[in-house]
């Protein structure tokens, strides 16, 4: 049995009786046994996978009504709550936090009979682009284990790429889905802000982040999006999506469609290999009849600064609650300490990157600086939304490399600033609330390069159609041989 298949193939096979859900789950567990020591996709693994698979097989046998996932083994980033399961956010602060409820995306997947393989590794509180900042050890890139898998949803990308799961849910605040998708050669979609409920997603920067699918194919991303998208009474920021079917009509003609390339996203700091790959992608789109044009979008130069200002300020506030008073992983006895000393000692256990961002996040909104940085960043965000909308009135989609650099080795990029520059092309869609997708495009020296497509808010369907066209024409091998 081939475990390296897509969701659509899986669902077909289970329907045809080619294999049982249990058989497939066992295969996934075998992959985990084989690769996990090397790759470390997971922080925790579900003990009940086989039990749950058997139950679904029983349902199939007795011809009970079955959800459309039919036991699809899906991995979940460890900042999304599953009732009764440990949710750590890659942090020591939450090492014993058992979620007392299901995130909305989890309820939806449960209803469709998905099986949760486990909780995937991530940079602590999703702050990072390499998964090196997890308190539970780093994850490795399946294409070359000396290289970072990207982040912060690194564990999710690795698990999909290595078939330790069939698909995954990640979260994306500034590229956290798309960056590891690009580095691990999987599809990663960051949906429109408000398309997917954040209820049950532990906040890092709540005005920017979205949960999104990470899959082997564009079609699989559409499949998961169909299940998890939609307005939710548990999240006031969600919006109505007309019950759009993202799977239908994926295959469209790109003749005379217009694609914009923002020059600022192809700048001098970008790797030549990545740029060349992007030019290749442009020619591929032109082969399909699309018209590609370069455009200048000057405000993009300020996007990264605005992004880090807003996310740090929000993080400072969102992470304030982790004080070990109501819940938390520490046995430190409250006796003898006053509140402030106690929680400061507890919060000392945040990782270095989190502390760094918390200090910046404490500085940004402080009186005297709030106008210079925070308010200004919010205004730049508004300006970007306005100007990007104008651009997208002239173009169907915007194309760029997902990450301006090639995957790199562990410890290669140490200082914050060079780390931040990795996010240069991904933060725009978070700042503007628009959807963006990363699609595997090619390999250079065995390392993946992904292309990013962006479009107007709520136009996921269009985005998936373009992505599907690119995926079809590139037709690359997506299965790493892990050694």
């Amino acid at each position, binding site marked *: 049995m081939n475990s390296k298949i897509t969701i659509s193939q899986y669902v077909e096979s289970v329907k045809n009786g080619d294999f049982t859900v249990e058989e497939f789950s066992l295969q996934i567990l075998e992959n985990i046994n084989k690769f996990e020591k090397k790759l470390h996709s997971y922080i925790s693994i579900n003990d009940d996978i086989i039990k749950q698979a058997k139950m679904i097989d029983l349902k199939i046998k007795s011809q009970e009504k079955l959800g459309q996932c039919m036991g699809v083994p899906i991995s979940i980033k460890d900042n999304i*709550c599953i009732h009764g399961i440990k949710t750590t956010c890659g942090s020591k602060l939450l090492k014993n*936090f058992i979620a007392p409820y299901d995130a909305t995306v989890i309820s939806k997947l449960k209803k469709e009979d998905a099986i949760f393989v486990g909780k995937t590794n991530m940079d602590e509180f999703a702050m990072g682009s390499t998964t090196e900042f997890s308190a539970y050890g780093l994850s490795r890139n399946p294409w070359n284990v000396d290289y970072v898998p990207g982040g912060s949803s690194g564990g999710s990308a690795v698990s999909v790429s290595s078939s330790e799961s069939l698909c995954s849910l990640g979260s994306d605040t500034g590229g956290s889905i798309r960056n590891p998708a690009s580095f691990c050669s999987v599809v990663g979609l960051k949906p429109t802000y408000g398309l997917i409920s954040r209820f049950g997603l532990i906040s890092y920067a709540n005005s920017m982040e979205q949960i999104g699918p990470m899959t082997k194919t564009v079609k699989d991303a559409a499949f998961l999006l169909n299940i998890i998208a939609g307005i939710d009474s548990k999240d006031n920021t969600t919006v109505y999506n007309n019950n759009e079917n993202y799977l239908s009509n994926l295959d469209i003609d790109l003749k005379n469609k217009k694609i914009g390339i923002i020059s600022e996203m192809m700048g001098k700091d970008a790797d030549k290999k990545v740029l060349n790959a992007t030019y290749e992608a442009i020619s591929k789109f032109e082969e399909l009849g699309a018209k590609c044009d370069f455009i200048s979008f000057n405000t993009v130069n300020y996007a990264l600064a605005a992004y880090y200002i807003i996310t740090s300020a929000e993080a400072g506030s969102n992470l304030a609650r982790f004080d070990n008073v109501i819940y938390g992983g520490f046995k430190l006895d409250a006796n003898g300490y006053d509140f*402030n000393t106690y929680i400061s000692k507890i919060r000392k256990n945040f990782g270095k990157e989190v502390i760094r961002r918390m200090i910046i996040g404490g500085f940004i909104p402080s009186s005297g600086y709030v106008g210079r940085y925070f308010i200004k960043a919010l205004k730049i965000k508004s300006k970007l939304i306005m100007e990007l909308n104008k651009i997208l009135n002239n173009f169907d989609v915007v194309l760029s490399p997902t990450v301006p650099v090639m995957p790199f080795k562990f410890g290669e990029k140490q200082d914050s600033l060079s780390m931040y520059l990795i996010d240069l092309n991904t933060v725009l869609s978070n700042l503007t609330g628009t959807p963006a997708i990363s699609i595997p495009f090619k390999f250079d020296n065995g390392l993946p390069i992904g292309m990013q497509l962006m479009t107007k808010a709520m136009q996921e369907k269009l985005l998936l159609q373009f992505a599907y066209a690119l995926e079809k024409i590139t037709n690359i091998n997506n299965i790493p041989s892990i050694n």
Partner: protein
Amino acid sequence: MIKIGLEIHCQLTTIKSKLFCSCDSNHRKYKPNLNTCPICLGIPGTLPLINKNAIKKSLLLALALNCKIPEKTLFCRKNYFYPDLPKNFQITQFNMEDKHSSIGYEGHVAIENKIININRIQLEEDPGRINYVKISDKSKLTLIDYNRSGVSLVEIVTQPDFSNNVEIKEFLSYLSNLLIQLDISDPTLPGAMRTDVNISIDDHNKIELKNINSIHDLEKAVDFEIVRQSNFITRNLQIQQETRHWDEKRKITTLARRKEDEQDYRYIIEQDIPSITISPYLISKLKNKIPENIKSKKSHYMKFGISNQVLDTILSDLYYTRLFESAFDGQNAKNIANIIATDLIRYLNTDEKKSKSKLTATHLIRLSELIDTNKIKRDLIKNILRQAIVTGNSIDVILNELKLHKTLDEDKLSIIIDNVIESEHDLIKKININPNVINYLIGKIMKKAGNVQPKTIINLLNTKIKLNVKK
């Protein structure tokens, strides 16, 4: 000059659920922490789900306090670490640069004799409660009950328009009535209404007073603070800008923190709650809910049959308003208003005359009584008023002096005398034997007839007795 401003926190006790979750708004009836859910415990991954009724109720209050209503309202996070805040921030409202964040602003209320301006009205969440439990002589436990966490609080911030306790009490009782009548809150529930005070004297620094739990203590705290600050001023000492706590047991205020120790709340916009548009339709719907009598002072007094024009005359002038309201007892409203607006206004038409006048509300009250019992002719009021303004003598003294008692109709007097003769039949037989009898009868008649000239009574009485004896 003493300037006092109030910050009143009032729970929306009449709504069913908390501000951001479906737990019970009536948190008082539960065992500790049994009125909680992941949202109000700040469990990771939860989001605030704002209660639409909380917005409506607080809007209603803002409208009743004559506030301007923003087109959109948004929420902010006040970031500070404290164990009664499970998220270590409070969701509240706060204007950030050009972003306006409130339920209402720039309102005003007319109390007895002045206008109190409302700075802003905002909606926010109540924190949990901290309990201290002694476990031994040396140690106590700090235990938190989050049942109250997330209950809706509406905060009313006034301008420093008060100058004494009387005005504060007046305002708070007006506000309490309003909250009850509009079904917004029951301020009599324990802890439902909490008031912080800021006080400054002349141009000295402002002091904030917190932790005041009753109107009774509020008065004491204000009095104490005025004396304390006045002492500083007379001794030429600098008053530091600071926050002071009211010490309930010792009945004094103590230093809580100095200005320079104020924490920085690092406000940011609460992006989990989108900006909420408030439609003009909703505003007009809510306006209709506000009963006539509290829409304004004017419509309140119009209920007593006072004409529009008369009310405008009085309410446009602080001196007349004060006089009217001090004399007002409901029943006499129309008389008092007419005396002021048609008669008094001719004599007291300058500030100088007003300040020199010896006329008081007592004069007006007595005048109204005499008009009601028909004992004084309407057209004589002008003369009486003129005397009262100059001399300050009581109305009855003035009446005696002017001998302006209205002569009762002979018919009415005749009936009174007939009744007395009837009831004192036996005495009348002795009228020629005992000369005191006639005096007794005159006294009795005068008691019933009021200030009628004794001569008139004697004449009429004599005629009647003669007739009676003949019978």
